[in-house]
């Protein structure tokens, strides 16, 4: 029984790891006032580059670094369009998701079915690092000056600018940071969780990470709780394969997300969302 419980917790942690990393990144981006719907695209690019670099060099850690760089670079595209060019953030993020899935698919031709010799364990440093990161990000967000600056650019960019904050710079940094975490999340999938490359291997996790950021109330610690919940859900569906049609089990996280969003939005009553979320900021705006 204890063994079973332990296995459940460990598996839930492993499955939840990429979700946790990606949603922590999205929380920081959105705290700065920028929605990035491109998580799915940044993750899949991270997954591909992690696999390609890990396979070529034989070092999964190098693969993860490449994933971080790829995620950050992809996020930079969104930052330019959403922050500098003040385009619609929602649509720009969707464009990033499409582009990432497309480019990873084109790049990944010929890489499918190749086994990876040097991998990271399923519950690895990344899992514990993710938990630690959540605590650190929570501390930074609520208990440091940097966190105050980040939150103020998301709540009242004009006031932050009047107080001497470089809103544009903070937003760029937050969005790119979010991309780096999403890239690592994707890398985890291809070098640790399922050491291989298959197109579309993120399978909607990126969208769930965005939803998780919302119903965690943009709070890194609550995101950890949400991650556990999803991890348990994935593990449960793995155990129930004999009883329930696999298609329904794969549907479960998405249906659960709808329900969770409905319940949490009702409880939050519009509270918690950064006030200026999704609104472009032009220097000089009041």
């Amino acid at each position, binding site marked *: 029984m204890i063994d079973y419980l332990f296995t459940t917790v460990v598996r839930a942690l492993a499955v939840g790891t990429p979700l946790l990393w990606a949603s922590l990144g999205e929380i920081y981006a959105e705290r700065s006032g920028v929605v990035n*719907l491109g998580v799915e*695209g940044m993750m899949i690019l991270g997954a591909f580059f992690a696999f390609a670099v890990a396979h070529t060099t034989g070092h999964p850690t190098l693969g993860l670094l490449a994933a971080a760089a790829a995620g950050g670079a992809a996020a930079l*595209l969104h930052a*330019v*369009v959403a922050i500098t*060019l*003040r*385009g*619609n953030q*929602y*649509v*720009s993020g*969707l*464009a*990033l*998701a*499409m*582009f*990432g*899935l*497309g*480019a*990873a*698919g*084109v*790049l*990944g*031709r010929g890489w499918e079915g190749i086994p990876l010799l040097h991998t990271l364990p399923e519950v690895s440093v990344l899992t514990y690092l993710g938990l630690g990161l959540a605590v650190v990000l929570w501390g930074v967000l609520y208990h440091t000056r940097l966190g105050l600056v980040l939150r103020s650019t998301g709540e009242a960019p004009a006031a932050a600018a009047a107080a001497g904050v470089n809103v544009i710079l903070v937003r760029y940094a937050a969005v790119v940071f979010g991309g780096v975490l999403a890239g690592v999340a994707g890398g985890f999938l291809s070098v640790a969780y399922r050491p291989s490359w298959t*197109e579309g291997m993120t399978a*909607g996790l990126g*969208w769930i990470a*965005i*939803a998780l950021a*919302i119903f965690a109330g943009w709070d890194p610690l609550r995101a950890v709780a949400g991650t556990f919940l999803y991890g348990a859900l994935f593990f449960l569906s793995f155990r129930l394969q004999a009883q329930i*049609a696999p*298609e*329904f089990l*794969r*549907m479960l996280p*998405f*249906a659960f*997300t*709808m329900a969770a*969003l*409905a319940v949490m*939005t*009702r409880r939050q009553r*519009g509270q918690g969302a950064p006030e200026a979320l999704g609104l472009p900021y032009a220097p000089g705006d009041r």
Partner: protein
Amino acid sequence: MKRLGPVVLEPVTAPSGGWVLVVSAGAVAAALATSAVLFWTFGLSPAGVYRAMFAGTLADPRAAPEIMRQTIPLLLCGVGLVVAFRAQFWNIGAEGQLLAGAVGATGVALFVPAGPWSVPLLFAAGFAAGAAWGLLPAWLRLGLEVNEVITTLMMNYIALFLVEWLIHGPWKGRGVFGFAYTDTFPEAAWLPVVPGTHIHWPTLAVGLLAAGGLAFLLARTRLGFEIRVLGQNPHAARYAGIDPVRTSLAAVVLSAGLAGLAGAGEVAGIHHKLLAPSQVSAGYGYAAIIVAWLARGHPLAAVLTALFLGWIFTSGDVMKVSLQLPFQVTLMFNGLILFFLIGSERLLAYRVRWAGPPGHGLPALAPAGGEGAAATGASGARRT
């Protein structure tokens, strides 16, 4: 007013139709140029890629019907999204609504005794199923203020797995042992096609009628007026006595229902059975977002932009065959086009004027981008 070398950018409230066209074409050209750079880094010759693309689509007479075939679902989903976006309902779920429509139509084709009523009935079922798929996110948004971007997306995945379940489980055909699809529809439930092609013209006709009808609706009817006001200024709409729930629901039902019709057209017009979601739709529901965005709020302009995206999809198919590129190449193109469209949006807030070399007195009056303004349905081109 900003001065950039010899040109001056002046802020305007509504850009001219010609300028919209110039900026949109520029964005598309920039996307194709960026793709060329990417192809080069992927180790493909950009010239070879584009030569294959043009040879396979514009120079090949067999390509035109194929472009038309792919335009049909893009048009139906796209015009619907134009209306939803005008009402500021960010429906990203056309893909799922299309799949739901395909399921509805399949239900009619397989389980209602066949007859002359089959086609109208399966269209109706497709519309109803698509609309139903859109109503849940609409209800969550209007009743509980849940962000519809995320929920419509979640509904896409739910629809995908629903189709997977149906074709592997209860609706799996009796005579198709190793494969996952339903039995073939009775012939009475097949849509007629233009001979020698896969163009199921009744669906195309419905799409064109929808474009015309929705243009009329937006411009000339009370509901259309309410949708426009609600989208432009929800507060003003409330003061004007417009019921936001009723108006939004109407926009969502139209949008999701038309996407459902597209799904009905795909299964009854081309495949004659329900099959894997990726075969029912090659991502038309997502690409329809670009159709609607390019059309800038005008249902009639969506006819042209759907045709353009139909060409992109066909080009992707050509590259798949002649260059062994994966189908995601279309997705990459689409992502880049959308990126550049959003990125160039800011240019529409300005008018470009030639002001002569710097330091030469007052700006000269020479409006740019005026030609061709009335050439397309994009004229007027106010964006909401």
